[in-house]
């Protein structure tokens, strides 16, 4: 068991969960304004790709992050425009954007780098790793918490900031209102559409960061379809965390931890296929404790009482 639960397990969990967490936070914001964003996978992929392009073009980490954010912003603007302005079914838009992102990144990989499948340059520099002064010297904790990429720490700050924003600020309050009862919010002169746009764009930023963490943090390369389903896991984390930043963080943590654990379990005489299942099985088991609202309440909300 020592072998299972060692420092590197927790450190690895932290790295694994960061992209999921960032994207899931984006998904949560969208969910809060009533837009269920299935396109997280695509947005993340665009983020991962554009971070690498930014790095290639500018050679600067800060600029490549900005570039990644810019690209995902443009992409999420498309999502917003289609689903808010043109009233398209959000789920269709999400799925279509996933396809589009995959096609676009693969296409651009060829158009920009003239390679297929992956772009890798051993001289490319990834996100800087931070050693946290005091903590790094604490025996166990230092190994787990110190020495990760800036975005790992940033994601923790973002959780706190988002929590503060949603539940403590006026603008966050209005965002919640726009999601809870858009008709009522509109009748009070709250610019619901503008808020929805804002939420989707914020989601774009977060997915951009998630992608950058993947392509410049976890590794330093871009490979086709490198999100490998993490966007969907993020979606699950969003729902499991009930679109609450802290809840989402908890769900992502569970997932990151289980994924790292599942890797380790491969050594323990269980067929790999089953160890790979572990995170999903555990998530389902965890759902036993996070009961859904139940259809009665759902229906009550959507059918709207005649009062």
């Amino acid at each position, binding site marked *: 068991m020592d072998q299972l639960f060692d420092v590197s397990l927790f450190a690895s969990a932290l790295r694994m969960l960061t992209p999921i967490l960032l994207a899931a936070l984006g998904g949560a914001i969208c969910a809060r304004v009533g837009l269920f964003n299935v396109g997280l996978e695509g947005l993340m992929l665009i983020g991962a790709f554009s971070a690498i392009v930014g790095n290639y073009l500018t050679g600067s980490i800060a600029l490549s992050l900005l570039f990644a954010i810019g690209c995902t912003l443009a992409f999420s603007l498309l999502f917003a425009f289609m689903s808010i302005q043109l009233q398209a079914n959000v789920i269709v838009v999400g799925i279509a954007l996933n396809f589009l992102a995959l096609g676009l990144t693969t296409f651009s990989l060829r158009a920009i780098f003239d390679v297929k499948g992956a772009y890798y340059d051993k001289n490319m520099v990834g996100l800087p790793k931070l050693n946290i002064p005091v903590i790094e010297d604490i025996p166990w904790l230092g190994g787990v918490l110190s020495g990760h990429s800036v975005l790992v720490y940033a994601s923790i700050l973002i959780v706190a900031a988002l929590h503060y924003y949603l539940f403590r600020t*006026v*603008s966050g309050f209005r965002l919640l209102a726009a999601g*809870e009862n858009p008709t009522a919010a509109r009748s009070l002169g709250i610019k619901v559409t503008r808020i929805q746009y804002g939420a989707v764009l914020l989601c774009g930023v977060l997915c951009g960061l998630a992608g950058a963490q993947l392509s410049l943090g976890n590794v330093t390369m871009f490979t086709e379809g490198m999100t490998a389903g993490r966007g969907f896991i993020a979606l699950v984390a969003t729902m499991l965390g009930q679109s609450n930043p802290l809840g989402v963080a908890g769900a992502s943590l569970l997932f990151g931890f289980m994924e790292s654990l599942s890797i380790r379990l491969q050594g323990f005489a269980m067929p790999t296929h089953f160890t790979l299942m572990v995170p999903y099985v555990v998530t389902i088991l965890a759902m036993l404790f996070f009961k859904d609202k139940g259809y009665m309440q759902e229906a009550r909300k959507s059918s709207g*009482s*005649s009062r």
Partner: protein
Amino acid sequence: MLLQMEGITKSYGNVTANRNVSFNLRKGEIHALVGENGAGKTTLMRILYGMESQTSGEIKLGGKPVSFGSPTDAIRHGIGMVHQHFMLFPSFTVAENIVIGREPSRAIGFDRKAAAEETTRLAKRFGMPVDPWKRVGECSLGVQQRVEILKVLYQGAEIIILDEPTGVLTPIEVKELLAAIKELARQGKSFILISHKLGEIMEVADRITVLRDGEVTGTVNASDTGEEQLSRMMVGRELVQLGRSAAALGEKVLEAKGLTVRGSKTKPLLDGVSLNVKAGEIVGIAGISGNGQSELLQVLAGLLQPDEGTVELSGQDVTGASVQRIRGAGLAHIPEDRYLWGVSKEADVTENGIMGHTGRLSKNGILRRGKARSMVAEWVERFGVKTGSLDTKAQHLSGGNLQKLIVARELAQQSPFLIAAEPTRGVDVGAMEIIHAELLSKRDRQGAILLVSSELTEVLKLSDRILVMFEGRIAGELTAEEATEEKISLLMAGGKAVG
């Protein structure tokens, strides 16, 4: 003249909701707007509130022409509206609901404490007490209505539009609301009040404007008119006063014993309720909403499992049985909340009409659509349901017309037992008359009816026996002869029966 609306016409395609309507409002006045369902009251007010734009006509505020592109404009000009359907955020607190849109803040932070203080201050000033920290979803409808009005007042409205504000309130809540309105009017606020309840209009209004089919039939001073005249102006004909024949009692059709529903709260929602309904009688249940009526109905209809107690219907034990079985045993059910239980908004009139009738309308599981349509068409005709066609979606019907459809559907069951919950909520006088007549005729044909209504006059008018519920129990029983509004009100508030 504070407000003038002149020659307002509003068309939706080929429907003209308002035709050359003129309407004005004085400062400090309570001006009632009445008319049948679909007469155009809400439309007129939506135009005033900037939610719709008129096809033609002019609005003047303090003599100056104005035009509102959005509710925000209207709010800025001191016009506030309490909508026919609540515009609240159930998961937010009372204070949050009131200050939303103009939140007190510190830097970017939302100062919830200041909001609560402001709410308490406002509530005190206008005499409408609320708990600022309570979630609105957990408040009674009366309090929710109060929150709506406080919200409008917080926004600084001078002209307040109330669209059917008393539709769901209990008599006591109605009294409190009307008192509050009067007080506010005395303080200089002006009100436009839409209601189908002529009694309360006669009580508070200074002037009354009547709409019929989108046109004004007249504006009268409240002191110069009476309910009969108003009804005539609205409907365009005399209404007949229904006489109630003596009850010819038959067998017990429904017998419930010791029904208890615990729920998650400390107090049980339903606490050992026993009652029976015999063939040929209407048993009315009165009570302030939230005292277990909803739970009682849901248990009887099979939508909620009781923790204790038994229900017998037409001699069969149906305790905890499925809705299907209970309906099979002879239940029809006009639900208390038509949008929640009564219809699927996305489905059309026919589809909504055949719920519960599919057994008779099918053969080997195949639905006979032609038969279904002619059945529903007949109801639409008989009850005067105003609908574009049988394929119109339910969400496009006005509430009153939807209610007529539901009543028709349930009466057509020809079942021995009928639950009629709020059968005329939000329904105009003409339609109310039809529904009341139908209920009484069912009773006369030896039907057993359990009537639940927050409308005391309705309970008094229709019931042969009246039960009053308080805190999940039956607080008292009165016969039609001995029941008066005072006695019932006392029981409803938890007092002892005095007669």
